């Protein structure tokens, strides 16, 4: 049996562990609202919209997460605006804006002649290659998102549960919706570093779908991050995808247990 703690001797494993735990925390807490509001499709779309921001940041040698955040948040708010002003259904507005943004990213990307390993990391996640600057940014973003959520948690729940009643009580419903979109945007942009654009929605949705209470969702996400990093080290598999597979397994287990318990209680 291999020594489970041996990988911790490597600095890159330590960084990967801290990075994926931070992503687990920030994704699970925002993810509770993504699942309650039925915004999984929007989350997936925002992650793709972050791509051109990342490519432009790469071209100008700026931090990739910052470029991704700006593109993601701007697109998320644009969709909200288009859906309200044009009368188009929100899913249609999402389809138009975000696939356009992703296509822009691909076109910009195809024009880059130099080494593009960093950018491929953005598509598929590269937590083992995460550096200290990226970790620091992930830490700050996690802190900002968690504190923001703590401050307006009850307002966001009210606005999500009963938007009309909340508006009648005098809450600025549109501003809270915009805040939630912005939090989802920065969460995705910072998480893309770890699990990649294509898989980030899983971190956002799966832990919160397994447990809608935020404390349990956090525990699932953080546990999956740690177990996923360990499995990917010993199995020599892609780390981001391994973490996502662990969250999927947790989800399947939770729902399996729930189904069995319902069967037993029903019988």
């Amino acid at each position, binding site marked *: 049996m291999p020594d489970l703690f041996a990988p911790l001797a490597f600095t890159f494993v330590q960084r990967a562990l801290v990075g994926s735990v931070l992503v687990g925390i920030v994704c699970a807490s925002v993810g509770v609202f993504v699942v309650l509001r039925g915004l999984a499709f929007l989350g997936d779309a925002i992650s793709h919209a972050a791509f051109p921001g990342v490519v432009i940041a790469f071209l100008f040698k700026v931090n990739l997460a910052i470029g991704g955040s700006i593109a993601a948040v701007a697109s998320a708010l644009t969709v909200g605006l288009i859906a309200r002003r044009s009368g188009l259904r929100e899913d249609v507005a999402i389809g138009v804006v975000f696939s356009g943004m992703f296509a822009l990213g691909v076109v910009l990307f195809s024009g880059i002649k130099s080494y593009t390993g960093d950018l491929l990391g953005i598509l598929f996640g590269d937590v083992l290659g995460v550096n200290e600057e990226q970790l620091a940014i992930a830490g700050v973003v996690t802190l900002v998102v968690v504190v923001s959520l703590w401050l307006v948690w009850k307002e966001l729940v009210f606005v999500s549960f009963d938007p009309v*009643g909340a508006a009648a009580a005098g809450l600025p419903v549109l501003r809270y919706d915009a805040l939630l979109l912005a939090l989802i945007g920065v969460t995705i942009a910072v998480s893309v570093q770890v699990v990649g654009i294509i898989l980030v929605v899983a971190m956002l949705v799966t832990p919160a779908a397994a447990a809608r209470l935020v404390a349990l969702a956090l525990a699932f996400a953080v546990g999956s991050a740690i177990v996923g990093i360990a499995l990917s080290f010993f199995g020599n598999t892609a780390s981001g995808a391994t973490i996502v597979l662990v969250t999927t397994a947790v989800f399947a287990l939770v729902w399996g247990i729930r189904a069995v318990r319902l069967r037993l209680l029903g019988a």
Partner: protein
Amino acid sequence: MTLAVTVASLPVVEASRTIELQDVSAGYDGVPVLRDVDLTVRAGELLALVGPNGAGKSTLLKVVAGLLPPMRGRVRVLGARAGEESGRVAYLPQAESLRWDYPLLVEDVVLMGRIAKLGVGRRAAAADREDARAALARVDARDLAQRPIAALSGGQRQRVLLARTLVAGPDVLLLDEPATGVDPTTEEQLMRVLEQLAAEGKTVVVSTHDLAGVMAHFPRVVSLNGRIVADGTTAVLRDDRILRETYGGHRPGGPQLYGDEHHA
């Protein structure tokens, strides 16, 4: 200037006008649902809004709650513009528009009535929870406090929503179809609470399809069909001409009789 003149120029009834609509038209996307509405409601009144689906009952409540700006006319609520009377107006939306599948406890929902007053970053204190339990007790639902909302019946949902409204401590209560999906016992109990509130000097406006309930409990009835057809006592509901103008050719007996041509 004599004292008598001063008193006469400041009539008490003027001060007690809580809702005033003058020449109000309102609707959605530029299409009016309600036209030329003049309505004054005073403190202590218990008023029923009746009319077919699409008659403008919800629209009228939303205008008064400040949720829908009128297309035309003047709306004053508690002496201020609608929506600007700082938390003294509570609006109880139709229960089916809420997300009852959320993982919330009944007490969480009741405490939502306090959120606007608490402000950002502040949690409900023990005193707020005590008030929430008292509000639940008043609607005869104290034992529901720790129940998940997903497990509530239609009648229990309405009790919980009314408790949330009570916790907000409003002077004006606007209730959109609170009798829908509610059993007769619950309806009787909720009506008793609304009658008490009116007796305490609150203004209570309720939209409803339940004409028998209106006959039994409401001192004042306003019948709507895109405009105010009649405004008076329950005698309004015994007047065939008014009923025809309100409901068209159909006799009102239940929502199924109203006919689709009335849907907005």
